[in-house]
């Protein structure tokens, strides 16, 4: 056992290490990489079903509640020179529009996607909206029998310290804030946010935490999404959903769709297209509608509808998302200064 043998051992060890790295890269079966912002509990079974149906292995990256959608969007931007994500399943729309502006999305004329209304898809085929959720006020009925009906009322001193929202830098809360910049205009929205802060609004890590704290009765009410509120109702907590309107001039329910898009230069474009078509298929929308998350289907052919208890007179609030997207940077800059500074 001499120097030669030791050298052989060392070279062998190095080769094995490299083979290990390479082996991890080698694709023995077709695969697709998904960055998924929808809650893991709702999206994982669907992705697993796709795996079983097609034999394509899905490699997902899930979000955490506190950095919803924005965190994954930043990953895609950071990896732009060497993309490793094939498909981005966003649970809101504005961060997908930001990716589109940066030309990080690939166009694809999805045959299933084209069955959706025009307002739900990009003309260039860079994104498709499906299965929406609504922004609601979850209210603990034991703590607050007479909740407010509009966002404007939330700044009333009588609700001081009784309202919770998720960190407005991430997820649907950020989308909601940026959309208010488009609906109300920047000055009015900034003023509203300042008054909300002065009214001791509680900032929690995510929408799920908002729903949980209201369900537990620690906080009287909170702004959250329908799926989180439904989970509390299903658990038998003393809560109800209020389909809160923006103000008297802007009636209607604020609805945010899930959005799927392909990433430009993603390593598995063919498999990604198959997954995109699968996610947009009516059966997936039906599953999301009838499942625990109670998502609102947007495909005209889907018959199933979630039991949300939506007021009959309420219609969806028409939101100009492209306009909201133009206000994103200003809105987030304001939120950072106002809600993350001393």
């Amino acid at each position: 056992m001499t120097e030669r043998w030791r050298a052989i051992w060392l070279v062998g060890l190095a080769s094995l290490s490299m083979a290990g790295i390479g082996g991890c890269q080698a694709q023995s079966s077709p695969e697709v990489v998904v960055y998924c912002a929808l809650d893991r509990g709702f999206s994982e079974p669907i992705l697993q079903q796709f795996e079983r149906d097609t034999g394509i292995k899905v490699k997902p990256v899930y979000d955490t509640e506190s950095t919803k959608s924005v965190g994954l969007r930043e990953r895609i931007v950071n990896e732009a020179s060497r993309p490793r994500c094939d498909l981005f399943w966003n649970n809101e729309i504005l961060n997908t529009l930001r990716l589109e502006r940066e030309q990080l999305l690939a166009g694809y004329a999805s045959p299933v996607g084209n069955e959706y209304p025009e307002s739900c898809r990009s003309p260039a085929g860079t994104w498709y909206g499906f299965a929406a959720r609504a922004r609601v006020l979850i209210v603990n009925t034991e703590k607050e029998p007479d909740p407010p009906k509009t966002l404007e009322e939330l700044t009333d001193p009588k609700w001081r310290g009784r309202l919770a929202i998720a960190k407005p830098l991430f997820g649907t809360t950020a989308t909601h804030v940026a959309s208010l910049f488009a609906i109300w205009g920047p000055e009015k929205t900034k003023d509203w946010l300042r008054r909300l802060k002065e009214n001791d609004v509680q900032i929690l890590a995510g929408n799920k935490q908002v729903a949980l704290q209201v369900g537990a009765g620690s906080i009287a009410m909170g702004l959250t999404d329908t799926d989180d509120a439904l989970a509390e109702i299903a658990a038998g907590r003393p809560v109800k959903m209020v389909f809160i309107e923006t103000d008297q001039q802007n009636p209607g329910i604020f609805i945010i769709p899930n959005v799927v898009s392909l990433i430009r230069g993603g390593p598995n474009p063919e498999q990604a297209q198959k997954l995109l078509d699968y996610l947009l298929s009516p059966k997936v929308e039906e599953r999301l509608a009838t499942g625990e998350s109670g998502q609102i289907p947007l495909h005209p052919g889907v018959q199933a509808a979630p039991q949300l208890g939506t007021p009959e007179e309420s219609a969806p609030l028409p939101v100009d998302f492209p306009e909201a997207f133009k206000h994103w940077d200003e809105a987030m800059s304001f939120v950072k200064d106002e809600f993350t500074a001393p």
Partner: protein
Amino acid sequence: MTLRRRPRCWEDRLLAALTWFSLGSFLLLPVFWPAVSAWADGSAWKSAIGDLPRSLSLLRTTLELSLIVLTACLPLGVLWALKLTRYSASPRPAVWFVLLTGTFAPLSLYTGGWLSVVGPMGWIHVPYSTTSRWGGMFSAGVVHVLAGLPWAAASAALALRTVNQEWEEQGLLVAGPLTVLTCITLPVCIPFLVGASIVVAAAPLTDMTVSDLFVVRTFAEEVYTQFESGGDSKTAMLLNLPLTALCTAILVVAIDQMPQRMGETTNCVRLKAGWRERTLWAFLWLAAGMYLLPFTGLLWQWGLSSVKGPDQLVGLQWRGGIAWNYFQQAFESSLLHGDLIWDFVRAALAGALATWVASLLAWKFVRSGRGMQKFGVAAACLLFLTPGPVIGLAIIEIFNRPGPLGLIYDSMWILIYAATVRSLPFCLAVVTASIARLDEGLVDAARCEGASEWTILTRAVLPARLPALCLAFLIGAATAMNELAISKIVSPPGEDPLALRTFQLLHGGAGNEQAAQCLLLLLIIAVVAVPLYWSVRSLLRSKA
């Protein structure tokens, strides 16, 4: 020990190359890359200077949290260490086993336990408020104290073992135990206790798991939030630098002041407990009992089921069947998908790699001059005290590029690298302390026989230090198993570390699944703690 020699054959040159490569890639790059890149960024400087109120606010919150942890952990830790090393503490092996399990249990586990007690679904109802100054801070403080106390106790116990037995015995001839403790024992341990303080205070400084969940704005949380929101993470890194540098300086000075006998066996003086001590022990056991809260909380949450009336919840009930189902589900899904197996593989590889790198570096530092040794200590301390998200950002900047580095970045090796970097300071401390006590005669004899440096290291030094290497491996593996702050940022698609999964579940609130995952994680740590205990024991009992 200072042994110097010149490289003379290809093996020695290979050893030198490997050592320098390890020094650069595992110790220097992860800390100096972000520091230099933030330092060199002009716009980051401008933002940092222009936003002084934010910096001061972050500094205040970080220091407050660290202070809470220190104030609670250090006195309790020292008292526990005294009980373990100077008084009878039966059953001693069981106490050490619990201590080691607690030391390597991840923050997410403590967080899960605490949420099971006071969270929205916990069994103690606490009104929640983030607007009050101490809203999230209280919960974050409790979690860090729970996680920091075993570290404080273990560090203080190691420190107390270094005190000269004769001094204490002579002191006892003329004074009582309390006077000996306060006038002889503790003053000798001051450098160790300062070091232990920094180690305990490091968690709030470097981790964002707890601060993210309880919305406490520390420096590590700021870096993480800025990165995840596409904000100015360079500024956040720059803001964090002074505090990290200050803590590093204190730790380096403390290590420098430590006697060179750390870890050596001394037969500790055994004192007899009087009524005062017994009262104190009762208080200590009471304090230790607070660990039962999160543990019981997890057990309770594990099998909890709702009893619903026609409209709403009418009560809660614990059912063994539900608990077993969730545990089985967590275990089977981990095994079926191979996630748990891959967790073990990654932890073992990271532990082995960290031990090997630590061995190379320790061998280098021990044979080098004082300047190089101090530089090594400073670099290791800096690595230990750098926030996880900062290291994560550095890893992305270094590895996320085409070519071989990109291949590593896309594979599980990036998680192994991250875990290795995180556990390296601990492994380095253990291996260096052990190699520094090696008998010079052994090395000289090997050298006289014409052995190369490579042969001396691999055939003489490392085999003679096997218990320390085993300990370093176990510490590395346990740290790797729990690593989250970096993995959260760099984890490649398809990789699903248990710590990350537990963290994601925590964000969904404490529930059955989360409790089952936490208990599974605790079980794994407890299994690792058994050989860890025997390694520590054999190391402390072995003569140099």
